[in-house]
């Protein structure tokens, strides 16, 4: 009995410290990072390096940017937020939910047209492209929901600039996040889809048919910021680490794109 209590003691202490959490300086507490789901592979690797270097554990929660932003707005205990677009960061900034001047652009991405592997040849996206012929009779184009999901907003902007939006709108499959669009193409449920280059990179059953010119849509930037309520001493360090040369290498190896600001020396 006694040994059982001895064994359980650390667990009980851990539970007690969790319950008593708010406020304390807490070097032992993990850094809580909320991040867009599309960053999962990259941030897992960056966080592992951060833990190794600093000794601080990182608890990562992935989800849709919109959902995470609403949770943060409503007091979720996050220290750092990495968003998939600027709109939701603006939303939080306007509500004073971010620590002043802590916001940084972390990495970029490109928009690509994808098809199931072996199903289509490479092409160039130009204003004259006959999309309906490309899709074929009954074929649909999978994109993330253009009203809500960042990848869908960028896709809509590009298609509008190409003058193809009106023709394509009734032929769209709108998905609740960009990875579902990727899945629909990978499973060949639809002949084409528009996703991020990094998404395509993660799915071998798809191939990139064309890359949309960066001038066709607003610049794709993943911003990170420290949450205003964060008391964690390492919050700022983690945002710094996200901009380090090591982190950039990880991002690039996973299909993300550099930002123009990367030409300046990386903070280490």
């Amino acid at each position, binding site marked *: 009995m006694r040994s059982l209590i001895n064994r359980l003691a650390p667990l009980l202490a851990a539970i007690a410290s969790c319950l008593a959490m708010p406020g304390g300086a807490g070097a032992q507490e993990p850094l809580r990072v909320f991040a867009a789901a599309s960053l999962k592979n990259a941030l897992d690797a960056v966080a592992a390096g951060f833990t190794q270097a600093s000794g601080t554990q990182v608890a990562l929660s992935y989800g849709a940017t*919109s959902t995470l932003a609403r949770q943060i707005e409503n007091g979720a205990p996050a220290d750092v937020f990495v968003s998939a677009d600027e709109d*939701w960061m603006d*939303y939080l900034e306007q509500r004073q939910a971010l620590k002043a001047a802590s916001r940084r652009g972390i990495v970029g991405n490109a928009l690509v047209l994808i098809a199931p592997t072996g199903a289509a040849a490479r092409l160039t996206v130009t204003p004259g492209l006959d999309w309906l012929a490309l899709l074929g009779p009954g074929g649909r184009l999978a994109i993330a929901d253009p009203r809500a*999901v960042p990848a869908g907003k960028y896709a809509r902007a590009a298609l509008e600039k190409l003058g193809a939006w009106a023709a394509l709108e009734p032929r769209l499959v709108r998905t609740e996040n960009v990875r579902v669009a990727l899945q*629909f193409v990978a*499973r060949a*449920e*639809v002949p084409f889809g528009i996703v991020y280059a990094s998404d395509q990179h993660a799915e071998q059953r798809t191939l990139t048919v064309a890359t949309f010119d960066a001038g066709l849509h607003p610049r794709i930037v993943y911003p990170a910021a420290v949450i205003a309520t964060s008391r964690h001493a390492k919050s700022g360090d983690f945002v710094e680490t996200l901009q380090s040369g090591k982190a950039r290498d990880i991002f690039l190896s996973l299909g993300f794109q550099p930002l123009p600001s990367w030409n300046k020396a990386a903070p280490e």
Partner: protein
Amino acid sequence: MTGLLQPLSEGEWTIILLSLKVALVATLASLPFGIAVAYVLSRKRFAGLWLIDALVHLPLVLPPVVTGYALLMLFGRKGALGQALESCCGVVFAFRWSGAALAAAVMAFPLLVRAIRLSFDAIDVRLEEASATLGAGPFWRFLTVTLPLAWPGILGGIIIGFAKSLGEFGATITFVASIPGETETLPLAIYAQTQIPGGEAVAFRLTMVAVVIAFAAIAASQLLRDYTKRGHSLP
């Protein structure tokens, strides 16, 4: 929140009418199967019965996303059943409103069957036997004795199936995505609005509509039940 009291827009009406169509079709199309399965589960005893029972209840246990993904693999354009149905009968579920109805029907099926089965269980078998002594065959017996006696349970099954169909989200969005006018039902539209900065007002309006429909469905079932309790029979 100024937009709360405006009349519903055309886009919102589309969503509401589509939701009603999907839920009605899902409920009515699965009703005959629901009655048959409930009858088998209630009256028949054979070796593999537990398997049918378990299969029927599977959508209740599995995460809806899994059910939706299974539907995509089975009934998608590249799915085994999806391809067979398309080539033999021209029926396509993928990214159509019929796919949303299929997803809703599958998710609501366990609830529908449960309600109907309970009322079959409660019927005094001697009433059926009595009608047999008066010369009624099995099918006629089922139609004129069993079914009318089970009516309250069947009605309950319809209501709960309809309600579940109306609220189905996970399986639908996984199987047929969210296409306005085709597969974007009330829950999908409400979810999409909560994902847009400033979309709360529209989300709230649509939620109110869902609440009104739910109350109307419950009220209708109460009226029907009272009507039949007073001794009226239904056609």
